[in-house]
């Protein structure tokens, strides 16, 4: 423990403070972050690997996995296209009300997930604005796939846009203006100049958007109707199994989502370390 006797710089904490705070932080991280993850795997494997595997491969679980993948496959690209369009308009042009528009784009992040589902029930539900018209025309939105997708789009709405807006603001418009003045078309300027500049930021936004889309629970819970094998996404299937006291099944499906979260965190960390300059400097986390 020679550190105890080394002279300490004026801006350094006392070694006991340093050890104390580090220990406190580590205890917090272990108790709050590592133990919940370990618990999921421990409960999933409570009856052995075979039992866990059979709950993941039974038809209702597979249908939940399929629904989660379909939902993300529609919601994430739509929000990515929106994010690119919004950041192009906001970063490449000046117009009145721009700040307000950016605030509105961020709005879904501050709305409770349950309220995010509720708003679609109030538009498309049987007692909603379009409820009777939809019933007369035999179109199902609430308690069906379109409602699940709409609610997922809402909760993941700002992810790509809020990564790209500061990034494209920083990059300015010089490169694009040069390409246009040399005779390039708008689309070709976007493909060959803008897109290569924003690709890592775009990937970063898509990564976070996808993690939330596959894991959303509250908003989807309101509009799903909870029909097993039909309108249950993975998080809803976990809830149903858990409420049925089928803990091995609930935690086995949950461990798939834990792995998704770990993969997301790893890719996110890699992107942040390797492409820090090319990803927006200001990271807002939600």
């Amino acid at each position: 423990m020679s550190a105890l006797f080394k002279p300490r710089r004026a801006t350094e904490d006392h070694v006991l403070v340093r050890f104390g705070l580090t220990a406190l932080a580590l205890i917090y991280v272990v108790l709050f972050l590592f133990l919940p993850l370990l618990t999921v795997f421990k409960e999933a494997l409570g009856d052995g690997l075979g039992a866990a595997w059979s709950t993941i491969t039974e038809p209702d679980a597979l249908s939940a996995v399929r629904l989660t993948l379909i939902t993300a496959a529609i919601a994430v690209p739509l929000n990515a296209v929106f994010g690119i369009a919004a950041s192009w308009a906001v970063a490449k042009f000046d117009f009145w009300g721009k700040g307000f528009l950016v605030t509105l784009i961020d709005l879904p992040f501050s709305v409770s997930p349950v309220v995010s589902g509720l708003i679609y029930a109030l538009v498309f539900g049987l007692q909603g604005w379009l409820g009777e018209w939809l019933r007369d025309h035999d179109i199902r939105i609430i308690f069906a796939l379109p409602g699940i997708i709409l609610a997922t789009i809402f909760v993941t709405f700002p992810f790509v846009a809020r990564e790209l807006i500061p990034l494209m603001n920083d990059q300015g418009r010089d490169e694009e203006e040069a390409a246009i003045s040399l005779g390039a078309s708008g689309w070709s300027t976007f493909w060959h100049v803008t897109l290569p500049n924003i690709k890592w930021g775009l990937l970063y936004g898509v990564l976070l958007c996808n993690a939330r889309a596959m894991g959303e629970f509250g908003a989807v819970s309101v509009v799903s109707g909870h029909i097993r094998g039909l309108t249950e996404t993975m998080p809803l299937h976990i809830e149903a199994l858990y409420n049925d006291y089928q803990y091995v099944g609930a935690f086995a499906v949950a461990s798939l989502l834990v792995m998704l979260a770990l993969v997301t965190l790893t890719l996110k960390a890699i992107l942040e370390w390797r492409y820090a300059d090319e990803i927006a400097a200001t990271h807002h986390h939600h």
Partner: protein
Amino acid sequence: MSMSAAVVAPGWRNKSALPGFGLSLGFTLLYLSIIVLVPIAALIIRPWEIGWSGFWSILSDTRVLHALALSFGAALIAAVLNMGFGFVVAWVLMRYRFPGQRMIDAMVDLPFALPTAVAGIALSALYARNGWIGEPLQALGITVAYTQLGIVTALTFIGLPFVVRTLQPVLAELSKEAEEAAATLGASRVQTFRRVILPSVFPSLLTGAALAFARGVGEYGSVIFIAGNLPGVSEIAPLLIIIKLNENNYAGAAVIGVIMLAISFVMLLMLNLLQAWTASRR
């Protein structure tokens, strides 16, 4: 969307040589309206169909009031706790070096990346009477799962990254010169902390806590599994919205929804003010 430059009055926007203004802004506004603005308008308008008295009678129901107070209070306590925990974690990550630091830094984002339902059942199993943390706490006479304490625990878990990620860039920018000057002038490390470090990070600490609070008030998935959900005791406001919807009481659900939306708007406004304050102090 025919919002091309030609039909826009001069002065409404600066001339830019780039194409695609009409297309990109038009698509943005259309998509924003369909996904966000129209459904939110549906929520804001809905409660007025039952009039002021109807609105008031739903809101003054003790079960509703209790659920709102619980969501609000538990989120507040968790945000305050996270000011402490978040500061320590951010300080240790930014100022010290220790093995495994990068992994722990990456792990701080786990509550963002982990689906809330998974967090909910994991915390519930962890803090149950026979859980890894619940059992030793039970021996001390503390019950976490299925009590209000469980709600605070879940919201503390959810809120930590907001505080840490808001503080980290500020701690990185904090100049060591001010700290050195304070030390040179004879200040103890504690004095330097209280007079130099804390004042410069305080607005960000508050911003992080406000973000955690805003998230906590509306949080659903990570809470309901550990909460117990006893009406009037451990029933949070978002759960009551779902219960009212299941009873086909759309107006009742909308009233609670509007109140929660109003809280979100107020928080958004306060956060903007906080950020302006932080910027003015740089």
